[in-house]
């Protein structure tokens, strides 16, 4: 493992124009040609070489090619992390088909909407998602032929009606490379990722081959990833960080990836030792879970050298490095829209990157109204740059190197994210809607999210979407407002819902919990529910929300009844002073 940062090398590669012709398919074929027996993926007990990986990806490519799928078509993918997941995407990418990476954590209407957004011609689901698929099957809309394939089930007869076995279809498919792959260019779209964005509604974001390739180059140049690296990957592959950061880094550097279906704090270190992994990409929350595990004498006795992290607490970096014997911890920041990349490769504690990489400016931190989320402008209608020490909204410049393709079929949301003529006529920026503190030397540190979203358990939650699910619990609920509130000792904000009831109606908390468990992922479930007598939306919804957010779950300030989702009892129970004290002192953990 080299371990040397090589930013100049990155710019040399970027500037030679290769990104215009690079594609995932070609990169995989290149690795299969140059280092065929090098391990690509370690999955459970299996070792998959680059040559095998390419062959198996080719079967998917040849199958879908034979079924008439062509460049620009979309296939939705609903699967857990596994080698086949990456082979499907690679196979489809080889023939120019876009894969919509569906979030497996969402349910019901939100899941159906996400799939429908992609306007896919077909969908591939893992065999463990058949039941989930059936709950939303009637709400899905596909383009012709609208086939739903199940991966991982061989005998077609076992499948419910209208589902087709992909494994069976692949049986006779060629494993040869397709000439078609060389026609796929950098500007072609590789995948659709999903984001709630700042406005809360679900949106599909196209990621091009070029962008994916560039992030891979960045991981190689700034993240110290090389052919000898063994990367431990337990982030969901439908996440930007999982797919665009980890997977691209693996392919571009020709390194090895230990692929896990999920993160487990208790199995983490035994896995690291077992696979001799020396590289890990995760989110801050994962590192905090690991650090909160009981100390062991052999904590530092592991092979892990480099941790790439998003959302790490600055004051935990050094203790974490020392306890586990980590050489480098590099904080990164990026958006699903994939405009701009921020690497704290200099490892300055608390920072998540710099506005410039090797004198190439990526963006600006500008003054904004924290209440309305509006960007402030001067008398000439230009944006006002923050000075060091100030907090503002981060804007990333949109240009040839960092294009923004816009959200799929959502021009309005796309335009809402774009800031034009901010500093001079003709400039174009993407508003990340993230608040950053600007430091001396143009370093930035993450502060909070603007808009109608909040972060909890390292995931972005759309307040609007949660409220929309709550008000559809027909019966007692008249109105709902959702916002994030701080719990001491936790990163981000957890969800709190303020509800009003229809006069004379009471809540059936058991049914309510069962309803939200079926309709939203765990991290989106409101931890606190406040029952308000009334919520006056007429004056200003934002004002009401701000007031509610300020009062939080402090029962000494709030006269309304507050219910808490109790993690041990797995039920909503009334808040008491004792419970409140337990939360504030960290005795009750979430």
């Amino acid at each position, binding site marked *: 493992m080299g371990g040397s940062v090589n930013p100049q090398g990155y710019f040399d590669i970027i500037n030679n124009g290769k990104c215009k012709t690079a594609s995932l398919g070609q990169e995989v074929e290149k690795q299969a040609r140059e280092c065929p027996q090098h391990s690509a993926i370690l999955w459970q007990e299996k070792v998959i070489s680059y040559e095998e990986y390419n062959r198996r990806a080719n079967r998917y490519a040849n199958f879908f090619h034979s079924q008439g799928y062509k460049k620009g078509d979309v296939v939705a993918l609903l699967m857990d992390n596994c080698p086949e997941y990456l082979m499907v995407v690679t196979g489809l990418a080889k023939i120019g088909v876009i894969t919509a990476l569906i979030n497996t954590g969402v349910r*019901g*209407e939100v899941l*159906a909407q996400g799939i*429908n957004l992609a306007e896919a011609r077909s969908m591939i689901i893992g065999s463990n998602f058949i039941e989930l698929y059936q709950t939303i099957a*009637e*709400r*899905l*809309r596909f383009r012709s032929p*609208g086939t739903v394939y199940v991966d991982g089930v061989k005998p077609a007869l076992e499948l419910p009606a209208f589902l087709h076995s992909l494994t069976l279809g692949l049986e006779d498919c060629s494993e040869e490379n397709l000439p078609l792959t060389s026609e796929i260019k950098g500007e072609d779209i590789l995948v659709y990722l999903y984001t709630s964005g700042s406005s809360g509604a679900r949106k599909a974001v196209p990621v091009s081959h070029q962008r994916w390739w560039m992030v891979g180059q960045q991981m190689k140049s700034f993240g110290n990833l090389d052919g000898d690296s063994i990367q431990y990957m337990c982030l969901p592959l439908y996440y930007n960080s999982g797919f665009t950061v980890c997977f691209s880094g693996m392919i571009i550097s020709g390194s090895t990836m230990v692929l896990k279906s999920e993160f487990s704090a208790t199995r983490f270190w035994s896995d690291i030792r077992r696979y001799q992994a020396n590289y890990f990409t995760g989110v801050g929350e994962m590192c905090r879970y690991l650090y909160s595990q009981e100390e062991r004498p052999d904590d530092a006795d592991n092979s892990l050298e480099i941790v790439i992290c998003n959302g790490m607490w600055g004051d935990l970096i050094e203790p974490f490095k020392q306890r586990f014997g980590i050489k480098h911890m590099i904080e990164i920041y990026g958006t699903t829209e994939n405009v701009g990349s921020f690497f704290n490769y200099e490892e300055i504690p608390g920072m998540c990157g710099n506005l410039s990489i090797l004198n190439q400016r990526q963006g600006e931190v500008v003054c904004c109204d924290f209440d309305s989320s509006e960007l402030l402008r001067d008398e000439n209608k230009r944006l006002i740059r923050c000075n060091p020490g100030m907090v503002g909204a981060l804007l990333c410049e949109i240009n040839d190197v960092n294009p923004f393709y816009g959200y799929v079929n959502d021009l309005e949301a796309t335009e809402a994210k774009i800031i034009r003529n901010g500093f001079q006529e003709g400039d174009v920026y993407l508003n990340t809607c993230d608040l950053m503190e600007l430091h001396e030397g143009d370093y930035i540190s993450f502060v909070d999210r603007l808009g109608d979203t909040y972060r909890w358990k390292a995931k972005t939650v759309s307040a609007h979407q949660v409220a929309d699910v709550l*008000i*559809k*619990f*027909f*019966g*007692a609920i*008249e109105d709902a407002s959702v916002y994030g509130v701080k719990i001491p000792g936790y990163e981000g904000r957890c969800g709190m819902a303020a509800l009003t009831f*229809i*006069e*004379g*109606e*009471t809540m059936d908390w058991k049914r309510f919990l069962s*309803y939200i468990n079926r309709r939203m992922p765990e991290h989106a479930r409101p931890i606190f529910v406040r029952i308000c007598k009334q919520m006056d939306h007429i004056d200003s919804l934002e004002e009401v929300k701000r007031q509610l957010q300020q009062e939080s779950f402090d029962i000494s300030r709030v006269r309304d009844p507050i219910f808490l989702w109790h993690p041990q009892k797995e039920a909503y129970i009334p808040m008491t002073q004792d419970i409140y004290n337990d939360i504030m002192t960290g005795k009750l953990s979430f």
Partner: protein
Amino acid sequence: MNMLEYQQQYWSRSMDYWQDINPYLRNVSKTVRYFDILYQMQNPHPQWSTPNQIIYEHQTLCLRHFPNRRHSDAKRPVLILPPQAGHHSNLADYSPAQSLVRVFQRYGYDVYVAQWISATPEFKDLGLNDIIRLTDEAVDQIRERTGIYKIHLVGQCQGGWQASIYTSLFQDKIATLVTAAAPIDVFAAPSDIVEDAQLPMKFFRLLVATNLGLMSGQYILWGFKNMQVEEHYVRKYFRLWKMIEENDDEGIKRFVHFENWYEYTQMMPGKFYLDIIKNIFKENNLTKPGSFKLDGRPVDLRNINCPIIIMAGKKDHITPPAQAFALKNYVSTPPEDVVEILTEGGHIGTLMGTEALREDWTAVNEVLQLAI
């Protein structure tokens, strides 16, 4: 404290005193409450629970618009056709917590309800053709107001087959047809209502004749009640007494609210009623394309080619699921555009039960959002 309040307090305290001395007297107040509730139920007064306004009236049609105070971002408006079976049309907006109107509103729809008002003798000769004509007037009013060419049509029970007939005659105006607990092939599964309808036609004519050419909703209600005699004449009174005994005020409130709707009846045009008995329940004509005509146009469900959502209740004894789901066999809509939803409830539960509204009508809305 004024005189009246003083008097009330005096009686209340003396009642407490006597009940303490003789516990049997406790039942006196409960009995008084029981009969008081039964007395109130003699004058049922159904009402709408969501703000609305009348935008069109003609003959027995009263078209109501329910403006969406939240947001109205759905592409097409929704028209609900409640059943004309002797009950009030507020079934579609039964209570704030049990309102189909509000379910659609929360999904961003602009909602309209065709209220069928009690027929007076001047409208005794309105037939099935007239009701379809009035439906068309309602649809056109909405199209004119909104500028939307095709709307979503939702029919509950009798309103469901009415919506199906309407769609077959005016397919170009309907984007999606939703039927709930609506009988289409009445011989697809046995039911008491169909059995009763096999009485001679002169019996039904006699019923109409006794009300000067109108069909009394009271007769229809008796018919419904006779299908579950024990429930309607015995059990529900026991239930009420038990609720009073247990001081279940919430339960009593729901009981009174339901009885207010259930016991309220209204008149139907006699000709319309007889047309139904003959064409739907005796001759099962919806399953026979072109077997009857309305204003000269043959009724043929094969003319329906829009997406369809069919709902039926597992425990529905009035419209068993097979009678409702049969619609798919008589339309031209491709099978992939037909969605069947089987609810856990009975007839009324499917139309307005909290669980059905929360789970099944939610599914209807989510499917409807896919309609073009």
